[in-house]
């Protein structure tokens, strides 16, 4: 009985670094067999960053960054510089459903593995081509770095404190991640379409356009009214209080938002109805918004006496939107996330297990996910070349000697 939705789906994965691998990882966790094409000739940057458990940095494919984004995949080595490698890939494509790459340039085409070629081999193949700026248009030759893409897309312009300078958005790989997730959705839609019609297709997905995808409010403000929205930090267009307040302890904060008179009254009650809450300048939503600077400093005088989780619990109990502003340690130790099973332990055959966030993929009648350890370089050469493609041990040896399987 099928456990995971994508069981039986095979992915030929040429993707590298973040934007692509995060996408193919979703496919792997949802049950697909993801075959990652790597090579001894070159290491991905992710293979050189981070030290997991008891491994030494540089022990191939075990670096933390790589492990984080490449679990639930298989690894083979192919030296694509040799034309024989492309011939092997073609054999593999005939047995596969999806080919994924994010070279950004026509490198697959150069290898004779462009969509037109692949379609001849397998007419219903789904090809995913991620890139920084799109596979068409005037920027195809430009390298894509997230800070540059975000500067282009208006994301950086919009990020920063109220009245402050534009700042690059945090979370390493934010835009890469967003791109990856649009890619997962597009691929699932293409898979569904294929199941109904037998047709595959080519998916061109751009990081720059993904970076823009959460900004329709800013875009429409301009296209409708030629207005440019500046940076407002933790503030809001109409809600007040709406911000982040200092709590007891080192660098501890709590976020609070009040969106109605009802919530305001609840808030005032919860903090003990101090005299200042009855001032005229806080008596209605519009006035609170106008006077939020004063309001914020008065609220801070209350929150500073409490632990950030305490404030959250007091206010949530009263029906007020509040949340402790969590740092990384808080996220790992949060009671709610623990109960939800947010972290997953991925077992390794000869290394301490890796603890990572699980995918936010919770289906009621499906197990948590196909979480498998990140492969060593070429770990699945025998399986793929021998079992799947039927090459003999001799053939494989020759190809290894000739540095085709390399």
């Amino acid at each position, binding site marked *: 009985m099928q456990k995971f939705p994508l069981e039986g789906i095979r992915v030929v994965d040429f993707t590298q670094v973040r934007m692509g691998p995060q996408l193919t990882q979703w496919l792997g966790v949802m049950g697909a067999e993801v075959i990652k094409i790597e090579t001894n000739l070159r290491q991905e940057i992710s293979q050189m960053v981070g030290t997991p458990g008891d491994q030494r940095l540089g022990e191939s494919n075990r670096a*933390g960054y790589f492990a984080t984004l490449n679990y639930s995949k298989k690894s083979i080595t192919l030296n694509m510089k040799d034309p024989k490698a492309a011939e092997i890939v073609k054999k593999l494509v005939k047995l596969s459903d999806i080919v994924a790459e994010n070279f950004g340039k026509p490198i697959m085409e150069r290898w004779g593995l462009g969509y037109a070629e692949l379609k001849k081999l397998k007419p219903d193949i789904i090809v995913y081509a991620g890139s920084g700026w799109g596979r068409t248009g005037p920027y195809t030759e430009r390298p894509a770095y997230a800070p540059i893409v975000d500067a282009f897309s208006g994301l950086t312009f919009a990020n920063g404190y109220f009245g402050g300078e534009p700042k690059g958005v945090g979370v390493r790989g934010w835009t890469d991640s967003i791109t990856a997730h649009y890619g997962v959705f597009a691929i699932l839609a293409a898979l569904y379409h294929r199941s109904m019609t037998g047709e595959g297709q*080519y998916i061109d997905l751009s990081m720059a356009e993904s970076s823009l995808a*959460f900004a329709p409010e800013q*875009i429409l403000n301009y296209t409708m009214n030629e207005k440019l929205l500046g940076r407002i930090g933790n503030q809001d267009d109409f809600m007040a209080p709406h911000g*982040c307040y200092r709590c007891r302890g080192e660098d501890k904060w709590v976020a609070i938002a009040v969106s109605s008179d009802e919530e305001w009254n609840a808030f005032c009650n919860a903090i003990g109805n101090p005299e200042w809450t009855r001032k005229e300048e806080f008596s209605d939503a519009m006035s609170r918004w106008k006077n939020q600077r004063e309001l914020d400093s008065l609220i801070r005088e209350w929150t500073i006496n409490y632990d950030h989780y305490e404030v959250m619990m007091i206010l949530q109990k009263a029906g007020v*939107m509040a949340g402790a502003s969590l740092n990384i340690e808080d996220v790992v130790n949060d009671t709610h996330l623990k109960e939800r099973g947010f972290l997953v332990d991925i077992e390794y055959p000869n290394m301490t297990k890796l603890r990572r966030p699980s995918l936010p993929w919770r289906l009621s009648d499906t197990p948590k996910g196909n979480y498998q350890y990140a492969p060593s370089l070429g770990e699945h050469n025998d399986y793929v070349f021998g079992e799947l493609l039927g090459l003999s041990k001799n053939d494989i040896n020759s190809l290894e000697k000739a540095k085709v399987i390399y």
Partner: protein
Amino acid sequence: MNSEALSGLKVLEYSEFISGPHCGKLLADLGAKVIKVEPPGLGDKARRWGPFPHDEPHPEKSGLFLYLNTNKLGVTLNLESVAGIKIFRELAKQVDIVVENNPPREMERLGLDYENLHKLNPKLVVTSITPFGQTGPYRDYKSCDLISAHMSGETYTNPEAGVDDTESQPPLKPPSHANDFLGGLMGAICTMSAVIARQVTGLGQHVDLSQQEAMAYLLCREIGEYNDSGGPFYRGKNRKKALPSEYPCKNGYISLSMLTDAFWASLSDMMGNPDWAKSESCRTTVLRNKNWGTIEPKIKEWTKEHTVEEIVQLAQAKRVPCSPIHSMKEVVNSELLAARDYFVEFEHREAGRIKYPGAPYKLSGTPWRVTCPAPLLGEHNDEVFSQMLGYTRQDLVRMRQAGVI
């Protein structure tokens, strides 16, 4: 030949504002038939949000609503009425997917929780998008984008380059409603996976999407590092141990990449090879990151003396990755996005002709498109209630009089 990827799929959307509607939009824009249920009278909260043409609020002209609800059919239903619930249930029997972003208690109160919907229609995929999920101690917490963002850990890492003063500068929420949009996108992924699962099992499932988890998951690298080596992490300046990318110019801001030694050499060239750039403290990436405190102000001194355009020209000549920090004005007028046909213009009966963003993916066989603009409130009551449920015009009049629709 089907030229829409998700044609044939029917969705009942009972959600408002951003997260649920974004999920519904992703499905509708690729051809799913999405019936959006709104309360009669005020309708979806997004109708009051704007932006509005000429800043004149109007429930049929809110930019956020118009964008998020393209390609959907719009009906009104009062779910506080027994008749309204009955109609909802009748619709739920006929669709493949229900998308909702209501508090878990709310759906229970209405008798529209997963258990009940599953009994009604075992093939139903029910996608519930909430700030904290359907279970756990925070399940009933009230939230908005600010709260969700801060509770995911994301704000701790924003801005990327760190803050000058951790006492006066709190963790920072990213622009607009990123957490809500993300919830919708993740919801759509999970929905499609359940639809695909159903092709084998014949049964629906409950998709439990927690926005907190969705965003916290994006911190996989930071959390990975914490678990592997314990951090430390801090918010102060240079938390990333790298030179920031953003610099002020005479007439705006620019983003310059200084990731590699090659880029640094080129940047020095651009700056006229000043002595300080050739010093030991600038020689390697590691050294530059270590000494960013003295280096960053010097770079700023130089950038402030030039316009954005001057620096872009110099950078392009030296092949240093760079971009002006665009406002939406430059974005909307960008030659790249025009060449990519990224923006689309179409008419809406009330709001008129407006230019909207398109989609970040281009599907060769089943392209993204807008076949109809966002619905007016209750615009498709007739079509949906008569055609799908067999109600007559008189029935609908009575229902309207009784406040059911």
